[in-house]
């Protein structure tokens, strides 16, 4: 218990910009992650109309995916409310919002799992065609991001139950939040580019 320094900014070192190292790191990482998704989405865009064999985008169930996209969108709201609660000093409320965020993330993942199964049943697998390949790898890569986010959120919830997530640790929650929102905006792009825009 004595040494939980890195969970928050315990001591204020001198920095050139007056900003915290870790938050700059997070934004540099997100800039870098833009290129990860940029390359993956490029692959999908280049390949989206190449369906030489097997089913193609007609499998998409727009209403269904809209609902899961909406769940992820709303999880961004609960995430930012969690941060606001912690900054106000309300650790208990923050914990609840964090838990809600993690749950919504889990619902999204469950929805993605169900959707993948459905597609596989209908004959679209990772290996059927380059369309299946690029679709599953893109959305799966995003799903992996979501899963890591859920994991981090649950860690925060756990730390909070153990009494180790205090208002002074709001930066840690903010950093996880930045990651989480980023995962959300990537899905905004994927939802539009992959599902909504017809090929």
């Amino acid at each position, binding site marked *: 218990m004595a*040494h*939980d320094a890195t969970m928050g900014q315990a001591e204020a070192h*001198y920095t050139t910009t007056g900003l915290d190292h870790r938050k*700059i790191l997070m934004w540099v990482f997100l800039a*870098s992650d833009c*290129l*990860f998704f940029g*390359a993956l989405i490029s692959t999908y865009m280049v390949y989206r109309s190449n369906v030489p064999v097997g089913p193609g985008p007609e499998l998409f169930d727009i209403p269904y995916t809209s609902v899961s996209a909406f769940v992820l969108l709303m999880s961004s709201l609960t995430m930012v409310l969690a941060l606001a609660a912690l900054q106000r000093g309300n650790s208990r409320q923050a914990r609840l919002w964090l838990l809600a965020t993690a749950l919504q993330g889990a619902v999204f993942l469950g929805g993605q799992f169900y959707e993948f199964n459905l597609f596989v049943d209908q004959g679209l697998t990772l290996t059927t065609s380059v369309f299946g*390949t690029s679709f599953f*790898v893109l959305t799966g890569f995003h799903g992996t991001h979501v899963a890591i986010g859920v994991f981090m959120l649950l860690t925060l919830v756990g730390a909070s139950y153990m009494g180790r997530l205090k208002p002074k640790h709001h930066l840690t929650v903010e950093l996880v939040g930045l990651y989480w929102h980023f995962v959300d905006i990537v899905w905004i792009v994927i939802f539009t580019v992959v599902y909504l825009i017809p090929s």
Partner: protein
Amino acid sequence: MAMLGGLLERPTGTTGIWSWLTTIDHKRIGTLYLVTAFFFFLVGGIEASLMRLQLAVPDSTLISANIFSQLFTMHALTMIFLAIMPLSVAFFNWIVPLQIGARDVAFPRLNALSYWVFLFGAIILNLGWFTMTAPAAGWFAYANLTNTTFSPTSGMDFYVLGLLVLGTSSLLGAFNFVVTIINLRAPGMSLMRMPIFTWMAFITSFLLALAMPVITIGLVELGFDRFFGTNFFVFERGGDVLLWQHLFWVFGHPEVYILILPAMGIVSEILPTFSRKPLFGFPVVVFSGLTIAFLGWSVWAHHMFAAGLGPVPDAVFATTTMAIAIPTGVKVFNWLATLWGGNIQLKTPMYFAIGFIALFTIGGLSGMTHAAAPSDLQQTDTYYIVAHIHYVLFGGSIMAILGGIFYWFPKMSGRMMSEYLGKWSFWLVFIGMNMTFGPMHYVGLVGMPRRNFTFPSGMGWDLWNLVASLSVLFMIAGVGLFVYNALRSARSGEVAGDDPWDARTLEWAMSSPPPHYNFAEIPVVHGRDALWEQKYPDEEHAAPPPVPAGGAHEADEEHHDIHMPSPSYFPLICALGIFALGITLLLYQMAAPLGYAAGVIGIILLLWGSYGWIFEPTD
């Protein structure tokens, strides 16, 4: 979780093997990078020498076609990813915090993690040598030669997994240095007062952070094709083999600047020091570096002029490529103007720096000849290109790195390298390099393609291939002498003192080697060449700083209690976890249970490492 962290007592030792395994001191990590990368530089050199041995005479049967393919693939991968990049990172680690007046990098433990992940990535990449199935499809690994049909051995698996792990290391290092340079500059050090080497480290780190993801995705896609039978690069099922080329070169061209910009930074430090004169046109040199880095993103398809992209893309990429010649030329002119009017001290680092200008200019000019897309169709994939890249990467990067080692060796070790041996090694390397790579221009122009394990006699290629091969001996002698010089000088070289070169930047303001906390008092910076202006206040900017910059040594006794973060086991544990995950798929292919075991162990180590890391106190 606190229990997990507590399983290991926080290490405290400052000597012995464990102190190296757990160190988070940027200077020790820099040394680890330097030694490891130099070792791989020698390995890459051996690979190259074997190739030259095979190509000394026509129709040679010394080395089989397949082994030769492994040699040229691994030579490029080793030199690029395991030698030049980490040698640059070694300088980032050693020099950047000292130049900007910081106690360490922003994330010391992350820095240690970068090193260990790099080491394990290097091991994975080289695993193939144990079974003589190293990657053999060229470092560019053009699809679809890399799929399981045409590359059935594990070679390409080592390539994919090794580069993924190495990429992780590069990304972590890049993030760390971006934050360090943004956020840990001494008071008063604005961006335009930042030393030029730090500037180039800054730009390079951005390039790494933005370019590595693209190749990572390419590698993930190639890995999926190989391990899970997907179709990214399977043209029969709708894939397109050119997509790999695009992803590779979108990364690959910024990568070229990742390799050369740190070298330019080193040279831009050496030239002013030994001319006893500031870098001419500092803001212009910085801006040229930025322009090169920015334009570097818009030229990738000049590697693909022969791919048949069509006249319009060819024209666009030829034009942007030409444009890069402008900031590059401006840099060269500014270096020349730095020399002009100086009081030039012809010490060994200066030899290497002047050699850099001479050789890099040749590489740049030959680059211009193949930016001309139509004539590049003749030169592409010939020895002319081999000559070009070696003038840029050996004549450029390696000359600068050797000069940089010579220049900062006194700071790192406290002792001088021998000038006498240093000049010998310079001339041997310089002559060997020109005699080996110079003739390749001609051999390429008379039609000899690269990546050929043999060539027929009587095509006009015999003589100059023999000359090139024999001249390798000069380089071996020169590099050998350099290594001997460094090893001997580290023990018994002349004691250097704080500032043996009468240099200009802050790293020379403290004792050699520096104390573990670097600066006893964080200096306040009032100008660009902070130390110089303090030593020669009457010249210009005559405003002696109120706080002595550095001056750590005389304050040694009072300040030895400056508290630095303790070493940590967790970077090494995390890196071992990443290593286990990195070889999971390889082991899975050998035997499924082995693969599962490695995966589980990897995840456990990674979780243990990261939770321990998070809950470990920072001090």
